[in-house]
């Protein structure tokens, strides 16, 4: 990992008050955010799932998204594919190995504005004890005033290769590429 990335991760992890100081920090929580994923099976069909438990912080100045920072910790045992047997398999040592790796984290390292309502989030995903640089594309899908202020909806999409984290079980039945889609609803300060 590049020293600057490590520095940013440490900065975010160890100094949450730093971001708080600006007053533009929002919690990343299941009440306002959905983390879903889709993985294909031999190109014939796919499985959709989600993570139900996670927490984190988003620093966001909606007018200057390039200054945004995000750090999220996802409880891997909260994986839900709407079928108990499959959830148990995913929690096993072949996949998320939740006994040894109860969480995965994503910490942004840089956010670049790519359009009026779009941004690219660069960061580091740590899963199964391995860290890998990942990129997600964010779109501001809605921003409007409501009774108490202003709300914004974001969709963040990207894909990861699970083999980058040593998760190779189930291939080729379970594709290497996992598509991730995160929907977030933020009540802007």
């Amino acid at each position: 990992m590049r020293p600057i990335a490590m520095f940013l991760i440490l900065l975010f992890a160890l100094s949450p008050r730093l971001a708080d100081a600006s007053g533009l920090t929002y919690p990343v929580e299941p009440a306002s955010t959905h983390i879903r994923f889709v993985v294909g099976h031999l190109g014939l069909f796919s499985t959709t799932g989600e993570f139900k438990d996670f927490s984190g912080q988003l620093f966001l100045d909606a007018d200057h998204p390039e200054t945004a920072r995000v750090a999220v910790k996802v409880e891997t045992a909260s994986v839900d594919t709407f079928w108990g047997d499959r959830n148990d398999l995913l929690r096993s040592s072949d996949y998320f190995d939740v006994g040894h790796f109860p969480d995965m984290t994503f910490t942004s390292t840089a956010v670049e504005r790519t359009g009026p309502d779009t941004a690219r989030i660069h960061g580091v995903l740590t899963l199964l004890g391995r860290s890998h640089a990942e990129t997600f594309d964010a779109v501001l899908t809605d921003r409007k005033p409501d009774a108490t202020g202003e709300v914004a909806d974001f969709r963040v999409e990207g894909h990861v290769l699970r083999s980058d984290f040593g998760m190779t079980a189930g291939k080729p039945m379970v594709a290497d590429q996992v598509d991730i889609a995160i929907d977030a609803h933020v009540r802007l300060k």
Partner: protein
Amino acid sequence: MTTQRRVHWWTAALVAVMLVLGWSMVAVPLALLLVKFVLYQAHKTIGIVIFGLTLWRLALRRWRGGATLPAGWRGVAAGTVHAALLVLLLAMPVTGFLLSAASPSGVPTLFLGFIAIPHPIGPDPVLFARLQGLHRLEGWAMLVLGLAHGGAGLLFHRAMIPGPRQTGATPG
């Protein structure tokens, strides 16, 4: 061998394969995803073939007549078992298809492994559990009645020897 006999024996062979396949595929651990997937899709494909063969048989039976049954209680028993087997041959693919559709796994039904047969219903864990129980029960009924049918057929056939074969039971 007449077409009716051919279809009968094809059905018998496929049902035997299905019983073995059905009971073994559920025993394969989920971790062996590909093996389990292939076995399930093979089971579904053969189920569809059996359903088609049975409809064909019923059509042939209507055109050409059914089996010649012995007189008396044996004939009544044989006729009842034949009817029950035909009902099972049609009902099992239907319950199997519906339980696949209701399965929370969301795995499609792929004839020959790649032709998707649209599911008429979506995942429903309660219905899935009920249909699973029914399908298993039908499997046992198929095994017991199939053995009874085969055993009775053998006995009947033996009783006919050395009599003329053409008067024996003709699968219909």
